[in-house]
């Protein structure tokens, strides 16, 4: 027998409507800073749901506008003052304590590595702008734009987590002389993060495979090659000496050389894979317990980095195949990729085993390349919440009248 409440059709409809409006509220609430949402988001959502009334499925435009306005006003109110922000962004000046939570949000943001790069590299861009050809000279600096864009995008993928960790330690950790409050983020030993072998090798296999395939296409189709002739005491040099000249020539017989290099790399990689399989079979059982480690899959930044690398490789191949540049770089990169690819695929197959769920990619790399198990990971330096009142003398405390000028020196 149907009863009123969550079990009845009306109750189910209300539950569904509430889920829909909560989704709508959470969308508009993104206008608030991340730290604010974490601290008070649930409370705000519940108030908005109450205000919307029972059965409401979407937020009305007035309430949505009110949330967006409130969120941006909060961001504006908590934003550092312009000169503080400029010094932080452009010369990485340490953020004052009042803006630490703002800095933490900034550092944890997805685009932080790029913001930091743009902020720090501005003198280079300024010099480039000053030295660029004057307007009307007819030259369009397309190559410069492409190079700058490449550097800016690349900045997102060059050790983003390491950059974030260093920035957190610099800008967010309390300084000497401050009172550590329970729950505040303080510098200390934290578990070392490692990428799981399965996730890491899957994405490494993708980037190696894409690079190898692109290099083979370039070797088969590229029309131009750069030939360099070295000369020693040549008669046309007008005297004794050493020199060389380079000419761009059709591929001709050099195509066989390029393809052969890649095939040999693949063959050597295959032999290496056999050795990798043997090493993994012998040493995986001997690996050590890792008490100071946490495993995580490849981050969103890492995956985006793999896709970006693959796109760069496709672009490079297109430049070589279309004859805009001579073949060369893709063969170098392809050789490296094809040397590593078979071993990576073999290691990926090993991670499918039931007892390999706690393997880090670094364990596999260490065993495959060195033939011995990885030593125990040491904890990393990072930020962690202060678990309780700080023990006397471990962290700085406010000076008492009887203290010497610099108490609490560890």
């Amino acid at each position: 027998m149907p009863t009123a409440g969550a079990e009845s059709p009306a109750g189910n409809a209300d539950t569904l409507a509430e889920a829909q409006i909560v989704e709508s509220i959470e969308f508009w609430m993104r206008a608030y800073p991340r730290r604010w949402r974490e601290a008070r988001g649930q409370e705000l959502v519940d108030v908005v749901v109450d205000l919307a009334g029972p059965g409401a499925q979407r937020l009305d435009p007035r309430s949505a506008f009110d949330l967006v306005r409130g969120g941006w006003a909060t961001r504006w109110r908590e934003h550092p003052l312009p000169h503080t922000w400029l010094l932080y962004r452009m010369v990485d000046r340490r953020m004052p304590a009042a803006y630490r939570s703002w800095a933490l949000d900034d550092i944890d943001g997805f685009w932080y590595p790029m913001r930091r790069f743009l902020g720090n590299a501005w003198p280079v861009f300024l010099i480039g702008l000053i030295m660029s050809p004057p307007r009307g000279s007819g030259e369009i600096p397309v190559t410069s734009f492409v190079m700058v864009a490449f550097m800016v995008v690349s900045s997102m993928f060059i050790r983003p987590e390491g950059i974030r960790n260093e920035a957190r330690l610099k800008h967010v950790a309390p300084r000497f002389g401050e009172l550590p409050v329970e729950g505040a983020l303080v510098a200390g030993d934290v578990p070392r993060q490692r990428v799981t072998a399965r996730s890491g090798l899957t994405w490494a296999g993708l980037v190696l495979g894409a690079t190898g395939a692109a290099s083979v296409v370039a070797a088969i189709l590229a029309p131009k090659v750069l030939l360099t002739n070295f000369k020693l005491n040549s008669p046309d040099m007008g005297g004794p000496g050493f020199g060389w000249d380079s000419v761009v020539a059709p591929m001709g017989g050099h195509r066989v050389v390029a393809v052969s290099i890649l095939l040999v790399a693949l063959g050597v990689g295959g032999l290496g894979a056999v050795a990798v399989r043997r090493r993994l079979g012998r040493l995986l059982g001997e690996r050590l317990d890792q008490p100071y480690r946490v495993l995580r899959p490849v981050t969103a930044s890492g995956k985006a980095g793999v896709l970006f690398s693959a796109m760069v490789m496709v672009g490079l191949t297109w430049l070589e195949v279309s004859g805009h540049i001579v073949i060369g770089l893709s063969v170098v990169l392809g050789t490296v990729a094809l040397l590593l690819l078979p071993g990576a695929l073999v290691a990926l197959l090993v991670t499918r085993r039931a007892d390999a769920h706690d393997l880090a990619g670094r364990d596999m790399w260490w065993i495959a390349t060195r033939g011995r198990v990885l030593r125990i990971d040491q904890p990393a330096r990072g930020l962690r919440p202060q678990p309780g009142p700080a023990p006397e003398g471990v962290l700085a405390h406010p000076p008492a009248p009887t203290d010497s000028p610099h108490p609490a020196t560890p």
Partner: protein
Amino acid sequence: MRITEQGYLVLLSLAEQPRHGYGIVGAVLELSDGATKLGAGTLYGLLDRMGEAGLVEASGEEVVDGRLRRYYRLTAEGSAAVVMETARLRALTHRARTVLGTRVAFANS
């Protein structure tokens, strides 16, 4: 901190008793005779600013029907601020009556 009309109404609603967010909106609607319906974004902006100014503070929370209710109350500074603002408004009303009374007297003469 300058107290706006909306801020004054929020302080006034908390003068009676601690209230949660939804309760404040209802009390403000009643106090303003239906003229001021606070949106959640506006309310939490006011609570943030008045919290930073030390006029209000959180006084506990509970979960009712699966909803988080965080209660807010006036601090001593908040109570003093609402009393002072009320006195200012009373003085303003007095002056307004005087001005309007003079005008009515002129109109009748």
